[in-house]
């Protein structure tokens, strides 16, 4: 399919260059181009279309068709700053037009009011670098609604007694319930909990030229062939291109934000697919490269003027990484659930969103019933630990369990810890000779304790649901992150935050950051909805600043 798209030369000084075309970058591109600005989006990955997507796990899992490629972009990991990091795939993120919104599960909760002001309510927590947001849920509510109606979110307003206030219902009904949702809902009711239809960024009805979900089951990890998953690729990027003012330029590896002698950003320097270097000039620069690559790019952009990295006078660039905590319990039922059909999740519950302080735990979580496996990934991740690894017993267990298994996934808070971070590895280089991304992470003890508690609740629900066999993944310190949150946090104080409430870098007046790195707290998982609401709000704020001449566009 051919979409009309503007094209610019790198030497054209456009109004905005946006680095990253994912959940936030796509929204900003659409909003700013719609508002009349000339926009270039530089995307590290390929421009794949719906017709390029496949169910072939060898392409998706083994060859990283949609995600970051560690053979050219290595990552290192260590638990503490005292250790030397070692090469490890510690981070997974989308690397194609649409970013991680192409392959994500599409669970799409709003954050609750408490997430924005939890520090005030709870006070300091030892070992955590805890803060309130400079904005409230009420500030963000109109933008949550805008996300739901513009990209397409299915759900049932008012079905959870724990939901925050909303100004409008969902634009379309929930997706069909699955077997996992039915048994989860019944068990929750038995135990006095409140399961409800999961809000999902997947179309339950055709909308705006896009097809409804056809329940193929290849959802987590895969791009949607019919455009039913409301990725940036399928929703906002076509809108941006249709303005005739936005160019999506793929296969561009941005490795530096250039600044002038006055400390203003003048554009983004990138390698094209042939490794030629270009400077895309722009009046203002927006980083939406995700919570790992945004801080890395700022650190790579160090100069005499900004010796510790661009926009890093606070020293907070890359710090306070929050990947969300998680726990998984599995159950096998007598009869076939056939949960390989349809999107992963159909029912969730938020009864534990704010835990009783008497439990001695901070934060909380949300639980969903799901099946997010393909046949291949089920073998490696969905069988009980005692299953034989080969032979007739292995085959028999696989055949029995595959249609009868569900997971209860507990998503929870990560507390911000200053030493948990992304930084530049001093030894390991990428295929272009640039310092590799280094992750330093050790869970705050509270988060592990809370997940132990959540896991026990999940096992109780499986018992109440009548699971014949149930077990859980061990609760362990995490060494792998997909939610990349908090690493350039927003705040009013330039000493303890990187951007202000308008997403403007405290140190560089025409530099804006908007993606998972902007978050101040981690919510209880499922951050994409909030990242997109922030992007819609940021676009409004940036437009207002530009129109009054504050960033000279």
């Amino acid at each position, binding site marked *: 399919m051919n979409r009309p798209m503007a094209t610019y030369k790198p030497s054209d000084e456009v109004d905005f260059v946006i680095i990253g075309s994912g959940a936030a970058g796509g929204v900003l591109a659409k909003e700013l181009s719609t508002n009349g600005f000339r926009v270039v989006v530089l995307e590290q990955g390929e421009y794949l279309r719906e017709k390029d997507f496949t169910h072939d796990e060898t392409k998706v899992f083994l060859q990283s068709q949609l995600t970051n490629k560690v053979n050219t972009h290595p990552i290192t990991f260590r638990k503490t700053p005292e250790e030397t990091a070692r090469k490890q795939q510690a981070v997974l993120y989308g690397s194609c037009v649409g970013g991680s919104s192409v392959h994500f599960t599409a669970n799409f909760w709003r954050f609750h009011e408490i997430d924005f002001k939890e520090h005030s309510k709870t006070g300091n927590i030892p070992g955590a670098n805890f803060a309130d947001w400079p904005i409230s849920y009420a500030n963000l509510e109109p933008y949550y609604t805008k996300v739901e109606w513009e990209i397409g979110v299915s759900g049932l307003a008012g*079905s959870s007694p724990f939901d925050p206030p909303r100004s409008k219902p969902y634009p379309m009904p929930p997706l069909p319930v699955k*077997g996992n949702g*039915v048994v989860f*809902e019944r068990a929750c009711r038995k135990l006095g909990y409140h399961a409800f239809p999961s809000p999902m960024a997947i179309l339950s009805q055709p909308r705006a030229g896009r097809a409804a979900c056809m329940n193929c089951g290849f959802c987590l990890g895969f791009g949607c062939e019919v455009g039913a998953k409301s990725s940036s690729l399928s929703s906002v990027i076509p809108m941006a291109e249709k303005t005739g003012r936005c160019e999506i330029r793929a296969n561009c590896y941005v490795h530096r934000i250039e600044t002038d002698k006055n400390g203003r950003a003048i554009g983004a320097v990138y390698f094209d697919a042939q490794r030629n270097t270009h400077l895309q000039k722009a009046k203002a620069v927006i980083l939406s490269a995700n919570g790992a690559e945004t801080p890395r790019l700022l650190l790579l952009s160090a100069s005499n003027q900004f010796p510790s990295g661009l926009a890093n006078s606070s020293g907070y660039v890359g710090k306070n990484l929050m990947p969300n905590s998680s726990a998984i319990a599995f159950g096998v039922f007598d009869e076939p659930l056939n949960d390989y059909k349809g999107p992963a999740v159909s029912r969730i519950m938020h009864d534990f969103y704010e835990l009783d302080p008497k439990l001695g735990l901070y934060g909380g979580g949300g639980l969903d019933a799901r099946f997010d496996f393909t046949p291949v990934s089920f073998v490696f991740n969905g069988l009980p630990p005692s299953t034989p690894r080969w032979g007739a017993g292995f085959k028999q267990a696989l055949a029995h369990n595959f249609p009868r298994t569900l997971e209860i996934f507990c998503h929870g808070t990560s507390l911000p810890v200053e030493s948990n971070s992304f930084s530049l590895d001093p030894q390991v280089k990428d295929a272009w000779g640039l310092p590799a991304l280094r992750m330093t992470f050790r869970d705050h003890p509270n988060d592990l304790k809370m997940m132990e508690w959540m896991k026990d609740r999940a096992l109780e629900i499986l018992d109440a649901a009548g699971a014949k066999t149930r077990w859980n993944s061990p609760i362990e310190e995490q060494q792998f992150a997909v939610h990349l949150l908090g690493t350039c946090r927003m705040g009013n104080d330039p000493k303890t935050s990187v951007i202000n409430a308008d997403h403007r870098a405290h140190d560089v007046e025409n530099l804006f950051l908007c993606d998972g790195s902007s978050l101040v707290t981690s919510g209880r998982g499922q951050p994409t909805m909030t990242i997109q609401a922030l992007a819609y709000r940021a676009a409004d704020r940036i437009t207002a600043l530009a129109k009054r001449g504050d960033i000279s566009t």
Partner: protein
Amino acid sequence: MNSFHPARRDFLQLLGGTVSAAWLTANWPALVSAAEHAHQAAKSDHPSLEVFTPDQAREVEALAACIIPSGETPGAREAGVVYFIDRALKSFFSDALPVYQKGLDAVQKNTTELFPGVARFSAATEEQKLTIFTQIAEESERQNDGPRRFAPGSSQDFFQILRVHTIYGFLVDPEGGGNFDYAGWKAIGRDPAHSFSPPFGFYDKDYPGWQPVPGETEKK
């Protein structure tokens, strides 16, 4: 091998295009039917061997059949796992080729040590194969923590790699070059259709629809 049938590509291009919502609504049942048809057409052809010699292929097939045996339902043999591995070693698993070469030599050695009269693993009786394979697997398990999520990782262990490759070859979507005629999916009860409509299974058949908990509709 045709890994992406043109009929399916046309269908997807159609859905990826800017057709109207009204058109989609009116034509949706026909579209789903077209998807099913196109997906069926994408089933893998039986390719020829490109990396393994016929002798090597016979041994790999016999070893893979120990991991997922045939029986009342198809096993690795019927799913064409050896062809998947052969193709993988030619492309994205090419780094593992030396592991196969060394591994097959070691299996030959194990076979003749344990059963001196048996010329090769594939010629052993089922009982002998079980004895030999158990030894290979137990030795491997002693030295490894098991496969990593999705990928075979950096293991140089023949059993671990063969196991991962066999599982992929048995269960991968046929577009990936294994799971011939959906043999693997049939064995695990996975309907090969490309799209589904509810009810999906036993428990959602009689679901009456979501209702609030009686008397608890107030915001908490």
